[in-house]
């Protein structure tokens, strides 16, 4: 430290100093003195300054010439040592540094600033720049010290976990976007950061002009004296903050206890580190800030204020756990959703079936298991959307499920699903059509409300991809419009839902129902739609039906859909059951639901009729719809609540399960829940109204519009969409409540979407076929874009619905947009997932999220509004920073590679994961 500095300073000093530089001898002297005893050297200064206060320099007239020289050197010396001592002080409190010895074999100590610390040679090299800098000449680069944990230091069976406020463990590796597996195999993720920064210290010389001139003229002894205080407090403060507690804890542990030692990194703070900044990455959902900052009051110096500041993680409760135990714990806790999903799968929750299947598919992959959480969640979303996917899956499962479902395909499916989802809404209808998508699409359309559509779309897309082209175009076109409308409506619905949720007592019920319903609803919808769609499609669009394995179902569904949202809901519920159980069951459920729906329809009809009237007019302007929907929503909400309740009986059960899963998510979902409930109510209401008022019309419309727009398969989708659209149109007002959001969004967007989808579809197909990931990315981007704008415009709505609608719109506007629409869909899901996650945090919402995907969609919608506020971080990221978040996610996805694809799929599916994201989601998931 001391050794290095002199040379340059002196030379420079001579030139710089006002006084002539006497000689270089001084230089030598300084080094010596410094080395021998920095303190002693300084002490004189202090002494001098002592009496006069500040005149020490002047005091020594005798040494004027030399003094100037010495002063220059001393200032440099003090500043150099300020940096190096700070580094030593900081690092020695975090890492055990090897001691160094002088010639006599004595321990070498650094006594600068009157804090005696064992010196080390380890830092010599890293600190060379600061040891030799000429601070007086303005050369004083800032010194950045990062204290971090590197999970590469763990063996394969270990995971670094952090304990949150509730003692829950979260895998850090996942938070770092390293696949769970990767934690055990760091090498495989070389590109990924394995370093988690806990603290970042910055030592620098502040702006000379920012302080009072008198501070610059502070005599050196005073400078030193004040620096002593600063270093004392630095020493003390270093031991107050969390990282020291971690350091202390691992020091206490027996040698054989697995632990991860802290590392440090010294860098020039003036340059940006190429490494990803992991300091602020949240490791788990929390309302508390990830980091805090501390700035020590700058200490004066002739060259400017000497500043030490840091940013540190507020929670450093890290420990190294066995990966398996962590997993198990996840399953127990966070993974609950997962469990629930599994349970659902086992139980074959009506709506969940598709999801379950999807999950099951996903689950098969071990890696996915973890990731599967995310994937599951994602899957969930897919399921949510998955209803469709589920349907698809179910279809695939039963008939050709292997093709679509195959694990390998799963990722693709997810992607496709995502894409399909979006596509369903936007352009992917074709894919759906191709696969069984047609039926799915309808369902999706109906279910599209949130995520279901995407999900179905995805599944269908694979299957339909083959057949899609022909029909897909038509379908896509139709679906897209539907989807777009849906999106829009959904957006509207969302806002409305949000609005409703807050005000309505129903909300509580809704929330619960919604939360539950969202999942169920989505499931129902999706599944129902799928079935229904297929049925409908059979009825409405024969092709689509055909495509849909459950064409019969689809037809039925179509009829049901036609009947009304209520029907849809009922169907959805039934469908869910069907999916899980069998068509028979679904049929029964449908019957039951239909009855229920009828009631609900009746109820909603009044409002829905008005709403529909309004909507029809309003369809032109989605926003208007939104308004109407809002108003209608309020009305419909109450009615919908009733409807939900009535219709939801089955759905509720499902919802209950989802809620269970979502538990927390639901909580967040409160808003989501509302939306959900609205949806369910809406669907019933809408259907009823539609059925009552314009069911026939709707059917015709559907058939008409669909045929025209989309191919048969698409028609099936269209049917669903139609139903939705019809619902939207007819129910326009009602839709807002809950169903409408979905339906409306779909419808509103559906029209545009369809067109868009039409346009998009081609691209989508290509894109989809080419690469889901890209599409997803695009989608995400689009979504973000769309969402962003929409968000601005509509705010909350924009979040979920806007995303979808926006995406759809964007798609419509842009050829790329179609893919984007898919993306959007996924995102909405993701957003929904996010909300779900938010709500779900505690519970491991992901699994739920996945389930919730449907729910999430609803939840998202509702949650989106609320969620944004609540999950400011996550939401913000996902919502506001969609592009950024998405991209990162995408990157992550891509980066992950296979895992990435999964993730992407997951993201797409879950949307949840994608939202704030993939990153966040993943960590959370874990």
């Amino acid at each position, binding site marked *: 430290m001391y050794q290095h500095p002199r040379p340059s300073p002196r030379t420079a000093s001579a030139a710089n100093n006002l006084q002539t530089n006497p000689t270089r001898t001084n230089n030598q002297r300084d080094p010596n003195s410094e080395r021998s005893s920095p303190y*002693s050297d300084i002490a004189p200064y202090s002494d001098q300054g002592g009496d006069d206060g500040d005149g020490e320099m002047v005091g020594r007239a005798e040494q004027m010439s030399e003094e100037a020289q010495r002063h220059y050197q001393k200032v440099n010396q003090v500043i150099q040592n300020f940096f190096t001592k700070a580094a030593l002080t900081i690092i020695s409190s975090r890492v055990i540094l090897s001691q160094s010895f002088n010639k006599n074999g004595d321990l070498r100590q650094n006594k600068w600033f009157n804090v005696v610390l064992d010196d080390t040679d380890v830092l010599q090299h890293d600190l060379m720049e600061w040891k030799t800098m000429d601070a007086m000449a303005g050369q004083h680069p800032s010194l950045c010290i990062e204290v971090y944990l590197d999970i590469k230091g763990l063996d394969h069976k270990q995971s670094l976990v952090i304990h949150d406020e509730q003692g829950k463990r979260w895998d850090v590796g996942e938070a770092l976007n390293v696949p769970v597996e990767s934690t055990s195999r760091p090498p495989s993720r070389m590109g990924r950061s394995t370093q988690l920064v806990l603290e970042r210290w910055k030592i620098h010389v502040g702006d000379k002009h920012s302080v009072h001139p008198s501070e610059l003229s502070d005599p050196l*002894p005073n400078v030193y004296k004040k620096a002593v*205080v600063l270093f004392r407090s630095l020493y003390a403060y270093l031991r107050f903050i969390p990282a020291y507690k971690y350091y202390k804890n691992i020091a206490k542990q027996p040698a054989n206890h697995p632990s991860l030692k802290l590392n440090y990194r010294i860098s020039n703070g003036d340059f940006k580190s190429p490494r990803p900044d992991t300091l602020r990455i949240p490791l788990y959902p929390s309302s508390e800030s990830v980091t805090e900052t501390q700035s020590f009051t700058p200490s004066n110096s002739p060259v400017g204020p000497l500043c030490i500041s840091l940013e540190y993680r507020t929670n450093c409760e890290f420990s190294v756990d066995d990966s398996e135990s962590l997993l198990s714990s996840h399953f127990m806790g966070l993974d609950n959703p997962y469990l629930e999903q599994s349970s659902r799968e086992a139980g074959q929750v009506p709506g969940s079936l598709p999801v379950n299947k999807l999950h099951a598919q996903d689950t098969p992959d071990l890696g996915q298991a973890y990731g599967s959480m995310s994937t599951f969640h994602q899957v969930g979303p897919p399921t949510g959307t998955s209803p469709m996917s589920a349907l698809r899956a179910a279809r695939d499962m039963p008939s050709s499920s292997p093709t679509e479902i195959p694990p390998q395909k799963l990722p693709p499916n997810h992607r496709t699903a995502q894409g399909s989802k979006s596509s369903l809404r936007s352009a992917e209808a074709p894919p759906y059509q191709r696969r069984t998508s047609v039926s799915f699409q309808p369902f999706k359309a109906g279910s599209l409300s949130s995520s279901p559509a995407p999900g179905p779309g995805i599944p269908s897309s694979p299957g339909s991809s083959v057949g899609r082209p022909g029909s897909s175009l038509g379908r896509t076109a139709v679906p897209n419009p539907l989807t777009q409308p849906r999106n829009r409506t959904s957006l509207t619905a969302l806002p409305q839902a949000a609005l409703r949720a807050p005000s309505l007592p129903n909300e509580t019920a809704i929330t619960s129902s919604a939360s539950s319903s969202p999942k169920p609803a989505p499931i129902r919808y999706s599944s129902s739609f799928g079935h229904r769609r297929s049925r409908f499609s059979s009825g409405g669009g024969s092709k689509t039906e055909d495509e849909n394995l459950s064409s019969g179902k689809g037809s039925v569904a179509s009829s049901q859909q036609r009947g009304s949202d209520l029907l849809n809901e009922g169907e959805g519920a039934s469908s869910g059951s069907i999916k899980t159980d069998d068509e028979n069951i679904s049929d029964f459920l449908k019957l039951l639901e239909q009855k229920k729906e009828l009631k609900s329809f009746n109820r909603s009809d009044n409002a829905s009729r008005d709403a529909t009237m309004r909507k029809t007019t309003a369809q032109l302007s989605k926003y208007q719809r939104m308004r109407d929907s809002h108003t209608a929503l309020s009305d419909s909400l109450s009615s919908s609540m009733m409807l939900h309740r009535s219709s939801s009986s089955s759905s509720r059960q499902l919802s209950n399960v989802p809620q269970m899963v979502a538990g927390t998510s639901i909580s967040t979902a409160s808003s989501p829940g509302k939306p959900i409930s609205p949806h369910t109510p809406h669907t019933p209401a809408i259907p009823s109204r539609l059925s009552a008022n314009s069911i026939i019309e709707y059917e015709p419309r559907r058939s008409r519009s669909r045929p025209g727009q989309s191919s048969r398969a698409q028609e099936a989708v269209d049917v669903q969409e139609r139903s939705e659209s019809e619902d939207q149109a007819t129910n326009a007002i009602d839709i807002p409540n809950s169903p409408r959001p979905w339906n409306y969004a779909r419808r509103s967007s559906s029209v545009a979407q369809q067109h868009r989808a039409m346009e998009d579809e081609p691209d989508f197909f290509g894109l989809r076929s080419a690469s889901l990931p890209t599409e997803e990315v695009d989608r995400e981007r689009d979504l973000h874009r769309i969402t962003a704008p929409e968000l601005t415009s509509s705010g909350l709505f924009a979040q979920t619905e806007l995303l979808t609608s926006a995406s759809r719109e964007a798609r419509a506007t842009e050829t790329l947009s179609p893919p984007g629409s898919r993306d959007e869909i996924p995102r909405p899901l993701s957003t929904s997932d996010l909300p779900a996650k938010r709500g779900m945090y505690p519970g491991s919402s992901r699994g739920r999220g996945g389930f919730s995907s449907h729910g999430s969609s609803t939840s998202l919608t509702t949650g989106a509004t609320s969620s944004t506020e609540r999950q400011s971080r996550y939401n913000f990221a996902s919502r506001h920073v969609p592009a950024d978040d998405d991209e990162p996610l995408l990157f992550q996805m891509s980066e992950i590679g296979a895992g990435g694809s999964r993730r992407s799929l997951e993201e797409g599916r879950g949307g949840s994961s994608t939202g704030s994201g993939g990153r966040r989601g993943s960590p959370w998931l874990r």
Partner: protein
Amino acid sequence: MEQRRRPEYHLDIFADLACVKDVVKAILHTIFFHRYFTSISPLTRDLLDLTLPAIDDVDLETLIEQRTIALVRAIESTHQQRGRGQLVVQFFEKRRRKTYFFGKADEDVCWEQWTLDVTLATPRTETDVLKVRRAMTKSLEKAAHKIITIVNRDKDHIPPITTTDANPFPYQVVVNPKASTDNNTWGPRMGIF
């Protein structure tokens, strides 16, 4: 010169009987850690899940120990449920010039004072014990942070260090002082400086 006023800082400390001694000592050490300008090899001591700095100085250690014991006794003697006590830490500057006028007393001028208001908690139930412990930990942590904030914020009043030997600033720890007299005594001197 710079010390026109003598800063007085107050710290509120809350502790139960079992820990009051350690807590007070820890606070005193933390204060001295920032005011003991002699080169030191810092020590650390753990208390209540906190790690606090300490100075390896026998004289100072003894003084802190004695004063702390005196304080605790004084508090206990109040035989009240929630005993209170006050500890005052003063730092002085040796004034060479003034030495002649006022003699020894005049030589030391207080330039900083820390007042510790110690509240003794006597929890009776298990839950109270836990609550007190939490409160105690919090108060200790808060006091420690406050000390660090203060010493970094206010540095200009620290007198110049005129000697390299031993501790440049005499100090004094007073238990339950008569505030009025002390203030009167030092006030004028401060003005001089």
